[in-house]
């Protein structure tokens, strides 16, 4: 105990209020911080969507280019649609493209999901921090009341 302090039970109450204010401020700051993290994660999710779309378009574009090139070659070589080998090659390319699309889609969905989860988690943490501060403040208030009642 600091001997230089003069005694006053109301100052004790005032400092209890200061403690509650500090606790609430800390909770709010933590919530803001978590919200900031959540916003970034959400932004990342949107970028991931965009990235997945761009990659898909690229693969479709390349498949389309390949099919067009093969059609040109078949035309040059007079090989009709009945050319079984060319058909088989084209089908194989389509099959390969489809596999890549599936894999890319799965990867993208997982990444997107994870990122959104991180965002949601950050928001939840922020809210939880506010709640914790509220409960702690309530505890401080009750403690202050209990102390005051003894004096």
């Amino acid at each position, binding site marked *: *105990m600091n001997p230089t302090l003069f005694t*006053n039970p109301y100052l004790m109450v005032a*400092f209890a209020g200061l*403690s509650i204010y*500090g606790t609430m401020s800390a909770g709010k700051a933590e919530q803001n911080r978590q919200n900031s*993290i959540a916003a970034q994660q959400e932004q990342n999710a949107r970028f*991931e969507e*965009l*990235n997945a779309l761009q990659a898909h378009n690229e693969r479709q574009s390349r498949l389309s280019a390949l099919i067009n090139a093969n059609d040109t070659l078949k035309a040059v070589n007079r090989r009709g649609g009945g050319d079984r080998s060319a058909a088989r090659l084209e089908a194989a390319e389509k099959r390969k493209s489809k596999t890549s699309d599936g894999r890319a889609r799965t990867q993208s969905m997982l990444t997107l999901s994870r990122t959104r989860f991180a965002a949601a988690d950050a928001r939840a943490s922020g809210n939880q921090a506010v709640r914790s501060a509220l409960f702690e403040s309530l505890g401080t208030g009750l403690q202050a009341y209990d102390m005051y009642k003894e004096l």
Partner: protein
Amino acid sequence: MAEIRRLQQQQVFNKPIGVVTPSNVSVKAGQDLANLGTRMMQSYFEKEVAVQKQKGVDAARGFAVRDAETQEIQFRQLPNSLSNIAKKEAQPLIDKKYQTALLADMKKEAAKLRADHDKDPEGFDTAYSAYIKKTSELVDDRYRAFTIDLGSELAGQNTAAIYADKVDADDAADFKNAYNLIIDKSKEIEAVVINGAPTGPTSVVHASYKNLEREIDELVAEHGDRLSVTGAPELRKAIRRQYGGALANAVAGKLQALPEFQNVVNGSEMAANVINGLEIAYRTGKTDDLEPYVLQTLKKAGFREDMLSPDFLTAEDRRIIAGDISVLENAMQEQLQATAKQRQAEATLITLSQGGTASKSDMNNVFALKGFDTVEDLMNRLPQILTGKDDDSRAIRNLFLNNNSDLPDVVADLFETDNLQRLANTGQLPLVMDLYQQATKRLNIDGSGVNTVQRGLSNDVVVEMNALNAYRNGVKSASFPEYFQRRGELARDPQRKDMLNMKLGKTGTKQNKITDFVTNNLGSDASAEEAAFFMQYAEDLVLMHGKEMAGKILKQSADRVFVDSKFMIGRGRSRFAPEKAFPTGTDMAVFKSHVETVLATADGDYTLGENAFLLPDPRHGSVNPIYMLVDEFKRPITNGSRPLLASGQKVIEERMRIRKQTLEEAREEMRKEFQRRLDFESRQAEEIGSPAIRGNLEFAP
């Protein structure tokens, strides 16, 4: 065919750019602020707690658990204005106070009940249990359990203590009884031995003594813890010494009773010599140094050598017994001397009663034997001696009244100024003056007048007593004690002579003398006797009252103290005149009748005032004078060889008869009447005189 080159491009995609972790400084700032608030809150709380605790201590200190007037415990609660912390701090202290108060009360009650139930543990337990029950009902709930627990503990402790005390007391009483029984038996044996019982080795007494030793052994065996280390040996020693001393005393007693020591002249002295031999035998432990006659006589009285045996008495025992015998021997010597003095005193008294005389030393001896060792002894018994009718008082009176030799020392001391002062304060001065008059004045039986004997008194004493006597019989302006006190002061005053001359004054250039003053104030008809009488205290009167007042006093005295009488021898003025002593017609008639009756028995035919006259005996004063009857030639009138006397006794008897008074009342009334006639007649004198004081002094002027 030419080959057209195509752009080899690097695929570019928009990707997530990661997360920047925001700073948590704000969070920390908030937390620090909260921590600060919490610490300060705690700090202020602790500070306030300390303050409240002190308040609690102060409240407890000032909390009275007892009523200020009745001192009874009062159960009260702490004031509600106190905080919880203060209450919590104060409550244990107050509890302690209540517990202490309860403890004190319960201990006090326990002590009281313990005293009431001494050696009665059951009674105490019952009474104290009832007290605890009642107390537990009366106390606050908070202290009920404490009261019951404490009460039980105190009850147990005290009950156990009372029981222990009882056991101890019983044991102590048993010890005391046994001890006292031994002492009593020892005393009984001592008494039996001293009374002359046989004490030989086969005697009952000796067996009883031996039995005592066995009882001491039993006492030690049973109560050894109650005897000190030296207790038992000391008890044995005391018993042995008592028995040995009793044997010696028995021998001494039998010695004194032997026929050869019954001679009244020297029997005791001879016995004392033989007892001295017994003392020597005990002191030395042997009989070799004793003369054969002494040893033979001792044996005749029951002495045996075995009484000195070292097996029986130690050397210390023998010395102590020898000391006791020495005391007995001294007592016998003192008794011898006392007997001699007693016999001498008896002889003196017989001599005096037969009209003989006794020397001063003889009278001193008588006074000492009668218990008058100091002047105070005499003062204390003076009234009894002077008026008592018992043999002792008569014998003492004879010593200084019917004897002319020097007065005994204690009597002479009475007349010293200091002692007169003390007697004046106790109202006994008139008694001493009566004593002086009767011891120093003698009426010559041949009718030649009064003779004065000095009785070894100094001239100063004689002068002082005469002056006092004159004042006492003169007119008074102040009470007798006042006069005496003042006179004492004047006597010590170094300026006395100058003061007297100043008060007497001068006639022209000649200093007036006291003799002239007296003669002038008494008048030409005053006799030389009157002048001599008043001269004795005239100086004091002048010094005390001044010339004018003293003159008036003398004039009144001349008229009232000295009266013309036709019955007194010489027919002149006399202070013993019956006309003055019996001024009323009835008293004078009675007196004259009495004198005529006495004269009727005379050898001859006499008539009062014609051929028979009165010669006063000054020893008896002038209130109720006694006269010798004489003829005109101052020769005693006799009946045979016995001179005839007249007194106021018949007057007193007549007054007793008429006024239904006792002898003392009649005498007292006569004295008062006499004194009233001597009071100085002025307002001032009435104010000065104190009837109470004067009354005490009017004994026999």
